């Protein structure tokens, strides 16, 4: 079943010499010890372009394959029934794969190519769905290759404790189209998730998506031209930093969606990222299809989120939108019927304790879009807002309706739905306390020219019931479309405690701001 190493010397020697050259060039960035295997120069067969050393006893998949070969069978066989701590090496070049590659319960597996550009797997003719799916297992590292045109998800990992993806690419080439697969990198229901140095391009859903997982570090990735660049959904203890989100419909999303097994997330920190020019047309479907094009970052129904020290620029709708789920579904009367079970498990349409600070904001809001926001956009672009004159669309937009209804006691009836565990975790529909507030301060106007000077904070609804002046015939509050400058702001002017850093334990090494990045500048602020 295993490919023998003999007979492959020529290729390996070639690869080794180029690998050594890379090491000589400083190809090892020094941050990348996540594999837990030290580089033993005497035993190595090759070095990937990222500086990862491939030892002599590695399992080689189709080592003699040449560009364009179909390596499906060799790959399937090599990854079936692996020994613990196996190191499986994909060949160098561009190859065809015609089925989903499924790996079960792998322990300590490293699956590597020769580099993010050196090993490319083309799934455009695949009869399967996901390109790679890792189900169960622990301590799995996936690195140094690209996955192209997956029919569904690129690299999925579900129910894994310890999943590391680095220097991978998940790519759908050409225009962003609705048929461009699903998620790129897709850890789901996993623990100890480390995604770094990856490139996600062209997904009709999220390029980099972490769902229903805990203890997560997402850093140094680039997500380009996806519907959602980076999305953290129903996940807890996540740090998203030093990433670039560019050219997506929405740059960085933090979502809690109803009805999932892990009902809600929280303690998500988004910091030191660049989210710019996320103005792609939204070709997505489902909830992500509702994300307004031109959104730098979006927090939807997730509590305990800190967004700081990011550079969020050139997004045509807004830099950061913070919204309850009521924007997606305002039929409150049907919530018990449609969401009763998940609300019992702690999902809430409201969000609390979202804190934006020290972000640099520039050139957003030039052309606000999105069906979901259309009434809000219409209000701010006309006289129908609190200033009575057209306004530059707010760089920070907060819907405020969940808070308003909570403060008015209108949601108190939902408290009866909340289960004991969720209650103990602080889930309730009481009026917001100080610690529940959405706050924004110390953000920086990065506009270079006077015509961009207006950087605003907008509230669709006031959070204080006594400020409600506009109601419909039934006494329900109407949008007020309050607006305020971002610097020296009145609205949202408060401070929240800092959130704890995420800790990823991968193969008994600690990653993140309290681990290998202890000295990283992004972690200092």
């Amino acid at each position, binding site marked *: 079943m295993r490919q023998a190493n003999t007979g492959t010397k020529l290729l390996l020697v070639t690869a080794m010499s180029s690998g050594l050259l890379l090491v000589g060039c400083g190809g090892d960035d020094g941050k990348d010890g996540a594999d837990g295997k030290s580089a033993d120069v005497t035993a190595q067969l090759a070095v990937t372009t990222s500086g990862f050393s491939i030892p002599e006893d590695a399992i080689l998949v189709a080592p003699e394959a040449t560009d364009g070969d179909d390596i499906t069978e060799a790959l399937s066989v090599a990854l079936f029934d692996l020994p613990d701590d196996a190191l499986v090496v994909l060949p160098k070049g561009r190859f065809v794969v015609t089925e*989903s590659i499924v790996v079960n319960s792998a322990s300590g597996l490293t699956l590597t190519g020769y580099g993010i550009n050196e090993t490319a797997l083309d799934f455009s003719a695949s009869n399967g769905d996901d390109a790679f799916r890792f189900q*169960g297992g622990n301590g799995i590292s996936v690195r140094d290759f690209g996955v192209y045109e997956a029919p569904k998800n690129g690299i999925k990992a*579900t129910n894994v404790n310890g999943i590391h993806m680095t220097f991978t690419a998940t790519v759908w080439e050409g225009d962003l189209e609705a048929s461009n697969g*699903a998620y790129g990198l897709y850890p789901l229901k996993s623990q100890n998730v480390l995604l770094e140095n990856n490139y996600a391009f062209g997904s009709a859903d999220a390029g980099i998506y972490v769902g229903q997982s805990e203890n997560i570090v997402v850093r140094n990735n680039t997500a380009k031209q996806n519907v959602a660049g980076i999305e953290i959904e129903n996940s807890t203890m996540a740090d998203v930093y030093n990433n670039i989100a560019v050219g997506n419909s929405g740059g960085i999303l933090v979502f809690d*969606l109803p009805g999932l*097994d892990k009902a809600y997330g929280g303690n998500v920190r988004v910091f030191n990222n660049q989210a710019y020019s996320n103005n792609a047309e939204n070709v997505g479907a489902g909830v992500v299809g509702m994300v307004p094009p031109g959104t730098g970052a979006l927090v939807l129904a997730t509590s305990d989120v800190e967004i700081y020290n990011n550079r969020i620029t050139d997004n045509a709708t807004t830099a950061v939108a913070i919204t309850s789920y009521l924007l997606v579904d305002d039929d409150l009367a049907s919530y018990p*019927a449609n*969401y009763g079970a998940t609300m019992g498990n702690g999902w809430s349409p409201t969000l609390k304790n979202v804190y934006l600070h020290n972000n640099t904001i520039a050139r957003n809001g030039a052309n606000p879009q999105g069906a979901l926001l259309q009434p809000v956009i219409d209000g701010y672009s006309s006289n129908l807002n609190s200033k009575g004159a057209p306004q530059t669309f707010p760089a920070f937009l907060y819907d405020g309706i969940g808070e308003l209804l909570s403060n008015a006691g209108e949601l108190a009836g939902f408290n009866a739905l909340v289960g004991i565990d969720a209650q103990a975790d602080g889930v309730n529909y009481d009026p917001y306390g100080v610690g529940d507030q959405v706050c924004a301060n110390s953000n920086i106007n990065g506009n270079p020219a006077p015509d961009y000077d207006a950087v605003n904070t907008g509230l669709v609804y006031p959070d204080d019931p006594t400020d409600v002046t506009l109601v419909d015939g039934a006494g329900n509050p109407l949008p007020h479309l309050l607006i305020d400058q971002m610097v020296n702001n009145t609205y949202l002017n408060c401070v929240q405690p800092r959130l704890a850093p995420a800790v990823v334990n991968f193969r008994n090494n600690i990653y993140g701001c309290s681990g290998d990045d202890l000295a990283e500048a992004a972690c200092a602020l």
Partner: protein
Amino acid sequence: MKHDKKAIGVALVSSIFIAACGGGGGDSSGTDAAAPPSNVLNFGAGSPTGSEGSCSAVTDGVNWDALMTEVCPRLSDYNLFTNAGDPTAGPTRGGVPYDLSTSLFSDYTSKYRFVFVPEGAAVGYTPSEALDFPVGTVITKTFALPENTAMRDGAELVIETRLLIHRADGWIALPYYWSSESDATLAIAGKRLTGLTTVNNQGQTLSFDYSVPKAADCTSCHSIVPDLAGPDDQREQVFLPIGPKARYLNKDVTYPDGTVYNQLQYWAEGELLSGLPADFNQVEKAAVFNDETNISSISSSELNAKARAYLDINCAHCHRADLTLPPDYAGPAGSSGVQLEYNRNYDDSPGKFGVCKDPVAGGKEGYPYDVIPGNADESYLLFRTETTDSRHKMPELGRSTVHREGVELLRSWINQLPRASCSPDP
């Protein structure tokens, strides 16, 4: 190695030879008495010896030891069928055929199932989960595409035989592809067959590709996964059979000798099954649905029962969480918002069945919710059963063509569900 006294001299000699080679043909200990016809179904079946097996062992009965330790290149190496070229009938001594009341759709194939339980062991009854098959159990399932689904007794193409083997360290699955008339070969990487055709019950000719799954694919459905409780939770997924649950076995079948018997009672009287409740009314019974079911002529409660059985056997091996599972385990799609198990109470949470639920990992324009009671045609769940686009299709594996009869069942079910907030105005 001992053999029962039925064994003729030649077999005895060859089995001694095998023992010397470290092979094992079986241990029929405790049945030395001159074999009177026994009502024990696996009487004389033999059992694993615990020694390392050999694929080349020549055994009188099932090659138990090879099953327990070896991944053999040919199906015939395990000696599970008296005619090695026919996995649809004639199991080796101890093999018992079984059938399910409603079964997973697999591209209109007919399925031939046998269970082999080692002599001296029995299956434990469980009310809702897969029966408790002892270590040593082997389940074979052969897939054959009939020329005409209305005449399943007629000509057919035998495509593949899948084995589920319960070894001491858990179940494993092995797919064998019938590469020739005489034998099936191991297909770890699966096999794709193009341009198969059949004629369905409506007389329509269907043409499609067929995928024999890869060995690794089996776990995608045949497992329950731990709901990892924290950073130190190292539990692993557990491999399990899906179909042989009491509720699907609880039906009458005609056995090769012509007798008609409830399968569970047949197993219990044959000492193959222990713990069957004395009060048979306690035993769950899934409704029968097959391509002969006339949906237009059944009551709404029958429709609901059949749809729930269909959703359970086709979807709920993945789309399941809690209920009768071990604590903190779920199906592989247990993290999805949609859970479709037989035992889930619809009225408690229609949202778990996708009612008025936004698609999360997926979605398609024109299908705003997974299930819209009264509007099946815009329900994403139904679309996913109607499409063969691998971006959207459900189930993800093992279906290359649309199960038109199943889709019609689900369409009728969705359209008769109690109206919900996302339903069209009456």
